[in-house]
């Protein structure tokens, strides 16, 4: 507790290029960008594979392979090969981390929609795209959001390792604190990351409430 007061109570923690606002913004940039990129890849791919049923094996295999990739290893390797001129070295491992949960959940969400529902939708004269957009996506939305939430939390938590190769973000406090034996700094950084992750979690809860039809969420509660 004292450590926390020491860190958060110090005005120096809040200003300058190493201040909390700057580190926070950097962290959000890494996490937000990689989540966005992963989403742009994984959601359409998951929808397409789930809708057409083509390439399902690819989802299972690639998702598990991507889970096995050690983020830290990828990060140091890429920086070693490419240098630290851009934030690309951070983005690549984080995107690799975020794609599997989004892809698997989107795919499973669409795949798992009651076949009778698809049948009824086609039977009433909806076209392929309309079936996807008006029926499959709204019904699969809870799972798609679950995938995005899992990915977002992992990315926020893992973006800390970027600091190890000299990049910014909240991980700076942890790595620096550790390297210089200043525990208040390290613990303060850890708390900030955890708070951010919890905020993300809460945001997704809100998003779920706003976006998912009560007809879908209500049904799940009854299950």
């Amino acid at each position, binding site marked *: 507790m004292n450590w926390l007061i020491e860190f958060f109570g110090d005005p120096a923690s809040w200003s300058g290029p190493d201040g909390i606002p700057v580190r926070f913004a950097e962290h959000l940039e890494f996490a937000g960008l990689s989540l966005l990129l992963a989403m742009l890849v994984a959601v359409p791919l998951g929808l397409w594979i789930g809708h057409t049923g083509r390439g399902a094996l690819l989802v299972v295999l690639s998702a598990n392979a991507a889970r096995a990739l050690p983020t830290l290893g990828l990060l140091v390797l890429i920086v070693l090969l490419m240098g630290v001129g851009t934030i690309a070295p951070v983005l690549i491992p984080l995107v690799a981390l975020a794609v599997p949960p989004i892809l698997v959940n989107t795919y499973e969400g669409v795949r798992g929609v*009651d076949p*009778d*529902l698809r*049948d*009824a*939708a*086609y*039977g*009433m*004269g*909806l*076209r392929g795209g*309309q079936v996807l957009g*008006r*029926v499959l996506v*709204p*019904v699969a*939305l809870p799972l798609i959001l679950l995938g995005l939430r899992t990915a977002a939390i992992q990315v926020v938590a893992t973006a800390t390792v970027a600091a190890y190769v000299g990049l910014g973000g909240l991980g700076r406090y942890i790595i620096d604190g550790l390297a210089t034996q200043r525990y208040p700094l390290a613990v303060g950084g850890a708390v900030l990351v955890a708070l951010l992750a919890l905020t993300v979690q809460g945001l997704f809860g809100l998003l779920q409430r706003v976006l*998912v*039809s*009560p*007809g*879908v969420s*209500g*049904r799940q509660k*009854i299950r």
Partner: protein
Amino acid sequence: MGRLWQGGRAPAGDQGLRMITFDDVTKRYPDGTVAVDGLSLQAPSGEITVFVGPSGCGKTTSLRMINRMIDATGGRILLDGVDVRTIDPPTLRRGIGYVIQQAGLFPHRKIVDNVATVPYLLGWDRRKARARAMELLERVGLDPKLAGRYPFQLSGGQQQRVGVARALAADPPVLLMDEPFSAVDPIVRASLQDELLRLQAELNKTIVFVTHDIDEAIKLGDRVAVLRVGGRLAQLAAPAELLADPADDFVREFLGRDRGIRRLSFIPGDGLRLRTDLTVPASAEAASARGTAEPWLVVVDADGRPLGWVAREDLPDSGTLAGVPAAPYGAFVRGRDSLRSALDAALLSPSGNAVAVDGSGRVEGVVTRQELDAALARAAEGARG
């Protein structure tokens, strides 16, 4: 060809126009299964044609070829002479109502929007589509209060009614129904069947109805197509004809045991001769009633409605008939009910006679057991011919 199908809501005069023709239709699935083999038949406009047969005989396949959920591999299916293969499937389907077993309602949409699905697709404006949906909910016997609910908040029977309303929303001239009532309990099923018949009397759609339940087929069908495994037509006939004269052993077996009794449902009861001298008002003196030669009499109230049977032997010496306990009776409506109902009414009466009433429940007379025997004999004669 396309013009007929682009309007969505057909003009009223156009309603009875859709006739469905199967012309030597075959379906062979990619794995080699021949589900339908050389099927030729017509589903006349404004009638309910039922496909019935054992599981796996190709009913669903046949039905789904009409709206091109499945494409035939041989032969043609014509809608008023137009080959369905020449019509873009979504356009075709928007002009054909489709009801399936589990209703297939969209869980994320409120009931009213579920019903308005096809009108929305056809580009109706929202208000008009919703107004139409509300009208249909009422039509199929649902409380308009349910309109704002989601499907999971409805019972199975209610969901099925919504499914029917949804299929009717754009007023398509053709309705395809695949075992729509088989997932609900028998009582709800019977009421849904009655509802469908009532709707059909108003709407005159061309309906193709799939079931594996022969009783349902006989109750609903104007014509019944019995299919055998492999999707070959065993017999196509009106229900009465089917019961009276099955084409072969397969059909006979499929129709089941009570074929003779069930056939009576199709013989009207209005040809039965009535005796009017067996009716006595409750205000009559018991003593005078004892004077007749008849063993059983029907007592009626001041309005002419039946109170029950009294046995002559049990009548007291004094007082009116109102004081005499009456035995239960069975009645049938002579202008409406079948010979089967008349027989049923007779079996429910201790006298063995059936009470005939008019539409408002007033006694018209009594059909004696002798008269019923004669009618049954005539019916048996008919079955042989």
